[in-house]
């Protein structure tokens, strides 16, 4: 069978390596100019990528008819991983890759599409055994998945729901999670209540506790406080891990805190050690990637103490900024 050739399709190249530390190169290489067809190419030798890369590709693929997706036959030795993770199943295309039953992909959650609240609750219950987590390790992971997926339901407006997958990495003893949606993006959501001029500004506003697109009221609405992303950034920071948000043409990435430094949580994401990028290929929705190292034994309850302190400081700072003195002339 001859595959169709689309001259001006979107292009994604699966590189040799793309994890949160070096994901900027992968994102910059993604060509999102023609959103009706997709051409996937890959490194021939070895492909090792963060789950967020798979979630991004799958999420993008769902917006395109399977007959308009071309995927070059994968030659890399690690190609079976992509079949195991369900990438081709979700894209609706055949990979031609045969997976032998005894080939283990380890502790992982394959690409999963979650469309509603009930599915999410079931998924959270079922995912813990898949990752072989102890209860204390499972708490932050369940928390992250719940908050991120509910953000998709409530804010993205995506008709494809949330796409996520996760993988345990024995070498670093960490769980890496990627969640993507093909919705309206953070700027459009935040702009319902806040005047963010750029995608980066909108992402940073969304990371501040108490800022939500649903209202300007302090404390949020009855259903929404605007604290979900702040909590997740805080979980990553306390664990000295990476966390990234990519939406529109911008990406905010929390960088690792060195082990020699004390961790301090901030309500203002500008105060965290981070990198920011603008002018990236436009991602219509939102993509979030996070790493959680299981070596760090910081208790979830201790993290909540730090969050409470940072949250209160953040609200006070905002109040001070709004405070006006009487002018006597």
């Amino acid at each position: 069978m001859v595959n169709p050739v689309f001259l001006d399709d979107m292009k994604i190249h699966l590189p040799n390596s793309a994890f949160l530390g070096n994901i900027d190169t992968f994102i910059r290489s993604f060509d999102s100019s023609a959103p009706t067809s997709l051409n996937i190419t890959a490194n021939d030798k070895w492909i090792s990528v963060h789950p967020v890369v798979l979630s991004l590709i799958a999420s993008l693929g769902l917006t395109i008819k399977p007959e308009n997706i071309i995927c070059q036959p994968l030659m890399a030795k690690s190609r079976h991983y992509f079949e195991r993770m369900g990438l081709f199943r979700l894209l609706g295309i055949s990979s031609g890759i045969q997976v032998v039953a005894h080939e283990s992909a380890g502790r992982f959650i394959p690409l999963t599409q979650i469309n509603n609240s009930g599915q999410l609750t079931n998924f959270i219950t079922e995912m813990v055994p898949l990752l072989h987590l102890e209860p204390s390790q499972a708490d932050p992971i369940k928390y992250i998945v719940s908050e991120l997926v509910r953000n998709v339901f409530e804010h993205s407006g995506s008709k494809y729901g949330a796409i996520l997958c996760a993988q345990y990495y024995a070498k670093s003893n960490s769980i890496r999670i990627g969640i993507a949606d093909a919705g309206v993006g953070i700027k459009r959501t935040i702009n319902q209540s806040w005047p963010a001029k750029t995608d980066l500004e909108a992402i940073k506003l969304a990371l501040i506790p108490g800022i939500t697109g649903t209202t300007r009221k302090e404390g949020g609405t009855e259903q929404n406080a605007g604290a979900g992303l702040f909590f997740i950034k805080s979980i990553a920071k306390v664990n000295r891990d990476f966390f990234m948000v990519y939406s529109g043409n911008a990406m905010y990435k929390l960088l690792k805190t060195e082990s020699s430094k004390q961790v301090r949580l901030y309500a203002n994401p500008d105060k965290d050690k981070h990198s920011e990028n603008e002018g990236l290929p436009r991602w219509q929705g939102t993509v979030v990637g996070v790493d959680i190292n299981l070596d760090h034994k910081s208790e979830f309850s201790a993290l909540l103490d730090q969050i409470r302190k940072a949250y209160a400081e953040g609200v006070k700072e905002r109040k001070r900024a709004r405070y006006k003195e009487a002018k006597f002339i």
Partner: protein
Amino acid sequence: MIEIKFFPKVGVFAENKDIARDIRINELIPPLERGESLTLNFENVTNATQSFIHALISDLIRKFGIEVLDRVFFKSCSENVQKIIKIVVDYMQE
């Protein structure tokens, strides 16, 4: 005093905000409007998200004032659930 048990409704991890909203609208607001007191029993619920607790109690504080906490009691909360409740109560008073 009316007691609402959460474990049968949400399991060990309270995260479903839709359930929180339904409980708030159908089981918390009506008795509070009648002037009654409530006990929210979190026995066997080991963890909750801030979003769940926010969806459950923030509107009570907004509707009835912070004095509502003299009529709403939190029972058998795990350390984590207690801390999440404190975070929400804190920022609703700022």
